[in-house]
C-alpha cells in the first residue's frame, strides 16, 4: 500500500517496512538482532530459527525494492555481541553496496568499533532527511520535521462480530509522528491510544489494510 505523507510517497510493506521511493530508502525499526541468543544465554529457550526468519525477510525486502539505503530507526541489536551478530555479519557480505544507517535505540549497546566492523553508519540521536526526522522514540517537542520512530512496537485490536477480536501489528501515522511496527518476529505488541485524526494501517499476513 502506498500512502502520501508530507508530500512524499511511502510504500507500507506487509513485512513491516516502509520504502521511501524518492530516496530509495528502506526503513525498518526494532530488528532486535541477537535477542534470541541473549535470551538463550539467560537460560530461556528461544529457537535460533526466529532470527533466521527475520534475516530472510529482510533479504526478501531488499531484493524486492533494491534500495540504496537501509535505515534502522533503533534497536537493531539486542544488548551484546553474540553468535547471532556473527550470523548477521555473514549475511551482511551479501549486500556490500547497501548503505546501512542506524539511529541508536535503547537496546543498541554495541561498541563503536563493532558497528564499524559491520559497516553500519551510526547516528546516536537522530537523522534528518527533510521533511522527516528519524529517531528511535518520540521527541517531546515538535518542529517543522515530521518524526518517524519505532520503539514501542505498536499493535491494534480489531473487534469483529460475536465478540471476536484480533490483535495485529500496525503502522501508526499521527499528527506529528509516525511509528513503525517492530520488524522482528520475536517481539510483542503494545496497544496505542488513538486520537482524533490518527491513521492506523494494520498488518495482516496477506497485506496492509487501513483501519
Amino acid at each position, binding site marked *: 500500500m502506498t500512502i502520501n505523507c508530507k508530500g512524499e510517497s511511502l510504500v507500507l510493506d506487509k513485512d513491516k517496512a516502509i520504502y521511501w521511493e524518492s530516496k530509495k530508502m528502506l526503513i525498518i525499526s526494532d530488528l532486535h538482532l541477537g535477542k534470541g*541468543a541473549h535470551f*538463550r544465554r539467560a*537460560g*530461556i529457550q*528461544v*529457537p535460533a530459527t526466529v532470527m533466521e526468519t527475520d534475516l530472510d525477510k529482510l533479504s526478501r525486502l531488499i531484493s524486492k525494492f533494491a534500495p540504496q539505503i537501509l535505515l534502522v530507526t533503533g534497536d537493531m541489536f539486542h544488548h551484546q555481541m553474540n553468535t547471532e551478530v556473527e550470523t548477521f555479519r555473514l549475511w551482511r557480505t551479501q549486500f556490500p553496496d547497501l548503505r546501512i544507517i542506524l539511529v541508536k535505540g535503547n537496546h543498541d549497546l554495541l561498541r563503536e568499533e563493532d558497528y564499524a566492523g559491520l559497516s553500519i553508519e551510526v547516528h546516536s540521536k537522530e537523522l534528518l532527511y527533510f521533511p522527516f526526522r528519524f529517531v528511535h522514540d518520540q521527541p517531546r517537542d515538535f518542529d517543522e520535521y515530521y518524526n518517524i520512530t519505532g520503539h514501542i512496537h505498536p499493535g491494534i485490536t480489531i473487534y469483529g462480530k460475536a*465478540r471476536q477480536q484480533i490483535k495485529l501489528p500496525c503502522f501508526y501515522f499521527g499528527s506529528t509522528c509516525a511509528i513503525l511496527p517492530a520488524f522482528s518476529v520475536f517481539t510483542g505488541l503494545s496497544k496505542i491510544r488513538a486520537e482524533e485524526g490518527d491513521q492506523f494501517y494494520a498488518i495482516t499476513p496477506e497485506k496492509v489494510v487501513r483501519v
Partner: protein
Amino acid sequence: MMLEKSTGYKKVIRWLKSSKKKPFKFQTDAWQYYAEGYSGLVNAPTGFGKTFSMFLAVVIDELNNQEAIKGTIVHNKKSNTKDIPVKKARKPAGLKLIWITPLRSLAKDLARAMTEVCTALELDWHVGVRNGDTPQNEKLKQKKQMPEVLIITPESMHLLLAQKDTANYFSDLQCIVADEWHELLGSKRGVMAELAISRIRGLLMEKHPERLLRIWGISATIGNMEQALDVLVPYEDVLKTIVVADLEKKIEIKSILPDHIDMLPWAGHLGHKLAHKLLPIIEKSKTTLIFCNTRGQAELWYQNLLKLDENLAGQIAIHHGSIDYELRNWIEDAIHTGVLKAVISTSSLDLGVDFKPVDTVIQIGSPKGVARFLQRAGRSGHSPYETSRIYFLPTHALELVEAAAIKEAAKTHNIESREPVVMSFDVLIQYMVTLAVGDGFDDQKLFEEVKNTFAFKELELSEWNWMMQFITTGGESLTAYTEFSKVEKEDGLWKVKSRQMAMRHRLHIGTIVSDAMIKVKYLTGGYVGMVEESFLSKIKPGNSFTLAGRVLEFIMVKEMIALVRKSRLKTAITPSWMGGRMSLTANLGAILRRKYNQTLDKTHEDEELDIILPLFERQAKVSHVPKDDEFLIELIKTRDGYHFFAYPFEGRQVHEIMAALIAYRLSKSKPISFSIAMNDYGFELLSEQPIPLDEENIKLLFSPANLGEDIVASINSTEMARRKFRDIACISGLVFQGFPGKYVANKHLQSSSALFFNVFSDYDKHNLLLRQAYDEAFYQQIEEPRLAAALHRIQGSKVIIVRAESYTPLCFPIKVDSLRENMSSEELGERIARMTAEADKKEEQAQRRRKNDHQL
C-alpha cells in the same frame, strides 16, 4: 507395646483431661496407626481437632522415644559422675515434622497452637514457620538450626530444596503431614507437594535406609478419598490407611425467601431486592461472614449494605484477593477479636483459621458445588457439636431450586471428587531446575524417583529425555539453540552454575500465576489493593472506582503503581477482575434435575420449592418442566430471530462447548450462523434463519459419536490452548512475571507467553509444553469426558421439543445473561422490563384465546 500403656499417651491424656477434653475415637485411631508405622489420610469434619489427630501422634511418639533414651541416660549417670548439672542447655533434636499447609495465614495460628501443646507437655520443641512472609533473618536462623516442627507451604518446600546442602536437614525427619490435602490435590501446587515429598523421602532413604518416614494427609470429605491417599502416598512398600471420623457436623441451611416471585427470573436482580432481609440476620449474630462468588460482587454488596444501613459503617469490612495484604491481615485480626459485625468476602476466606466469633454464614448466589458450600458453612460454629449455620440468598428465583438441591446433597453426602493433576511438564521442569539450583541431581536416579510419584507415573523415558534437553541444550536440535545455557553437568550432577540464573529461578518458584496487576496506593501513602492493568487502561484520570469498599478517584499511574485519592462520590464503577466464572458441578447438576421433578409433583419437603411453584406452573403452561429422564428443547421465534434453547443442566463450561458443538453440527447440513449464550442450566443458539431441527434429527445432533473430531472442528482449540499456555510459560520459566505490583527488574528479558506460543508453534512443534497446553485445554477447559457422559445421558432420555410463543421462565435467565455482556446495567433494566411485558402480553393473549376456545 500397647499404645494406651505408653508414657507419652498417658501424658497427653492427662493434659487433655486437665483442660476437660477427651480425644475423639478417630484421633486415638490415628495415634495408634501412627505408632504402628502407618502412613495415611485423616478425614474428619472441621472443628473436631484434625490437627491434633496428627500432631499429637507425633508428640506421643517423641515422648515415648525420649522415655526410652532417658532410661539409658539415667542408667549411665549412675555409673558415672554425680555432678552433671540437672538443667542442661537445650540440645536441638533436628527437624522431626514437616507440616505442609496451603495457606500462609494458617501457619501463624497453627504454630501458636502447637507451641502451646509443647509447653504444656514440657516438650522442648521449637515450632518454626517458613513461607513467603517469613523474615530473612528467621530463615537464616532456621538454616543454621532447623526447628523440630516446620510449618511450610509447597512453594517454600521447593525453595528449601533450591538451597545448598539441604540433605542434612532431613536426617531426623519422622513425618510429613499435608494439611487441607483436598485443597492442594486438584491443583499444580499438589504436584509440587508430591515432588517435594518424593525428594525428601529419597534423600532420607539414601542416607538412612533403615529409618521410617511416615506421610500423612488431613482432608475434608471429598468424593475420591482413596485416590487422594494414593496421590499423597503412592509407594507400594509402606503401610497405609484412611482414618475416618465417625462424627457428623450439624449444618443448618436456611434460604432467604423472597415475598414475591417474578414470573421471569433473571440473574442478579433478585439478590439486591432481598438485601434488607440480611440486616436482621447480621444484627442478631455475633459475626457474620458473607460469601460472594466474585470480587466485583463483593464490592457491590459492601456498598449496598452500607446504603441500606448507615450504622453499619465501621462495623463491616470487605475481604478478597485483590485487597492489600496488610489490610487483609487487619481484617482477619478484627474478625478474631470480634470487632466486626460482618465481613463480605470471596473464596479468599473459604479456607483457613478458625474465626471463633463467627456464628453465621451467608452465601449470596449459587455456590455451584456441594463441597464449596459445606466448606463455607463450616466457617461458622467451628467447635465440635456446635451447629454451623448458613443462609442462602438467591440472586434469581431458579437458584432456590439449587438451594433445595444442596440441602439434599449435604444430607446424602453427595460430594464432588477432586481430580488430581497429572503430567504437568511445566511443574516438573521447574522442579528439575530447582534441584539443579540446589545440590544438583543425577538424572537417572531422579527419573526413577519422579516416576514413583502419582502425577508422573505415566512418564515416558522419551519425555524425560526431552525435558533434560530442554533445560540443558534448550531443545531438540543443537544448532537451533546455540549459546543456550542453564543446567550443566558438574562432578556427575546436573547443576545451575550461574548465580544470576539461580537467583532468578528462586524468585519464580511456584505455580500461582497472577494477572498483570497494578497496586493501588493513596497519594498520601498507604496501599489499598490491586486492580487489573486492563481495567486501569480504560479509565481516565479524574474518574472514580471502588476498591476495598472505598470510592477512589484515579489520579495517575507512576512506576507501576496507581495513585488515587478519596473521592467525594458515593458510588462509582466497580472494577471487574478476570478470573473464571465458576461452573456448576456434575453432582449438583444431577440433583438439580431431580428437584425439578419434585417441584411440580409436590413430592418434597422444601420450602424453597413451594415458593417457586408458581414459576414452575407457568413454565408447565407455556412450555414444559423437564423430568429426570427427559431432555427439554424450546424453540421460540421472536423479533431477534429463531431461538433454540436446550437444558442439559451440566454447568456453563460444558454448555459452552456443547453449544459450539451443536452449532457446528447444524451448520454441516446447511450453512447457518449462530450467536451463542449459556448459563449453568442450559444454552441458547440464536440465528436469523429457521433452525433445521426436529424430532427426527435431534438425537443425531446430540450424538456422542465423532465427538473428539467435532470438538476440534467446532471450537478454536488453539485459542484455548494459548490461554492455558500462559500459566505453563510462567511455571516452566519461559516468562518472568515478576511479583504482583513490583517493578520488573529484568526488563531486557521480558516477553509474553503468546509470543512463545507462536514461536514454538512455528519452529518447535514437538515442544512438550505446547502439547501440555492442548491437553489442559481439552481435559480441563473442554472437559471432554464429562461432555461425553452428558451426551450419553441425553441419548438415553426422552426428548421433548416445545415450540413456545415467547420467552419462558427457564430460558429467560440465559437470554438476560447474554444481553448483560454488551450492555450497561441501566439499558439492561429497561430492556428486560420490555421483554417481560411482551412475554406477559403474549401469555394474556393466549389465555384469552383459550377462554374463547372454551366458550366455543
